């Protein structure tokens, strides 16, 4: 893990992604520093997941660059992947594996061995409260537990950069609260990016928010600045104001 030496943890420059006729991400740029928690907001199909997939090296950008701790994801994908903990959208996991075997597998690939491996697994199992389901196979888990296993897997190697696509989707209120506290706790020395549709989450954990729609950045600022966009000082209202202003200017029917 590289030290916090002034270079941004994540630097996205002119990122662009086209899927045939669909222009999913259009020339977006931003950077995230250590100590920041960035909330990635936007309507369905805005390009949030696509952007995350490009940062984590799963998708190849059509154009633009991504640097993670100074490593270019195109030329040095292994270093980038080693410093990121990633929860993909929908928290995929190997159906036939038990939770503990799955965590062991990820830990091994992450280069953890022996006592250290055991200690890290124990730690995340404790943090995410998985002790009750360790011997259960992933396909028999409830949706919320499946998501929690996905979060646990992303934390195993104590990554420097954490990218989570809808980490609290499907969690019960207690677990939502736990995961948010965890994110806040870890924020101090990590760079964290989460996408979410729950705007109260922005208030609860994020130090910064970006709203994207149709692949473009519409807003980039602090939660307070976001709320100030609303006449009634409300996040949901601010989100609606910003996105509907955009869609109106695009001449499309407003979606929210």
């Amino acid at each position, binding site marked *: 893990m590289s030290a916090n030496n002034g270079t941004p943890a994540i630097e996205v420059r002119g990122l662009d992604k086209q899927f045939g006729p669909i222009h999913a991400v259009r020339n977006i740029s931003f950077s995230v520093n250590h100590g920041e928690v960035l909330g990635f907001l936007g309507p369905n199909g805005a390009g949030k997941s696509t952007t995350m997939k490009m940062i984590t*090296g799963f998708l190849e950008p059509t154009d633009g660059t991504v640097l993670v701790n100074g490593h270019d994801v195109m030329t040095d994908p292994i270093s980038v*992947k080693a410093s990121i903990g990633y929860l993909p959208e929908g928290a995929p996991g*190997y159906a*036939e*594996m038990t939770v503990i075997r799955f965590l062991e597998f990820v830990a*091994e*690939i992450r280069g953890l061995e022996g006592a250290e491996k055991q200690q890290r697994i124990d730690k995340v199992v404790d943090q995410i409260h998985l002790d009750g389901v360790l011997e259960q196979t992933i396909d028999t888990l409830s949706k919320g537990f499946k998501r929690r296993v996905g979060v646990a897997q992303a934390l195993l190697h104590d990554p420097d950069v954490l990218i989570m696509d809808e980490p609290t989707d499907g969690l019960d209120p207690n677990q939502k609260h736990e995961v948010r506290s965890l994110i806040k706790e870890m924020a101090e020395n990590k760079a964290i990016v989460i996408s979410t549709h729950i705007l109260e989450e922005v208030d609860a954990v994020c130090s910064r928010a970006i709203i994207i729609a149709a692949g473009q950045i519409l807003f980039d600022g602090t939660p307070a600045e976001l709320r100030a966009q609303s006449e009634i000082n409300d996040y949901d209202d601010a989100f609606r104001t910003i996105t509907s202003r955009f869609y109106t200017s695009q001449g499309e029917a407003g979606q929210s």
Partner: protein
Amino acid sequence: MNKNIKAILKRELYGYFHTPVAYVFIIIFLFLTGIFSFYLGAFYERGQADLEPFFRFHPWLYLFLIPAIAMRLWSEERKTGTIELLMTLPISTTDAVLGKFLAAWCFTAIALALTFPMWITVNYLGEPDNTVIIAGYIGSLLMAGGFLAIGSCISALSKSQVIAFVISVVICFLFILSGFPLVLDFFQGWAPQALVEVISSLSFLTHFDSINKGVIDLRDVIYYLVLISFWLYANVVVIDTRKAD
């Protein structure tokens, strides 16, 4: 073998043995090898102590059984989205492809090893040339590797295991067919001799038969290794370009 390949190999083998796939495959494989050698191959009636009738049917068994174990290698990862998890771990595509291929190959080796009662039987009934039998096993395993490499590459092309299975069977069939006298006769009439030889030399059967006679010719081994490398390389390219589609 690096530790990433080992971790993936372990996970895949775990996957085989924690789903019905492994047991269904092994039972069907053992059952069919038995049927084929005893009935079609006239194992007893020949009055010879060897495993020739047993090995003779392996290409045909593999034609259907190997694509069935290879089809899940990548199709399933793509369908369930675990490929996104796997390919954002700090491993190279080559490691992932090799780990999965080796797991499937180990699995086939286990199934093949479980046919040992056949070997014991011929040794009990007569005095076979055991070096020929060992060569037969090695040839069979190499051929299985060839089929598996094709199946693995094809499974990377589709999210549907059924489609992967059907296409793999067809391609494997072509690789068997190209050594068949019928096919070669067809070309013999008009095609240049060199081409006929190339076609015949691409066949699984040609190389399998020659190993089966008890001589492990380096050329046959190289043939299989080149074939496997070629298809696994194609597999890496397919994953790199199409993993997210």
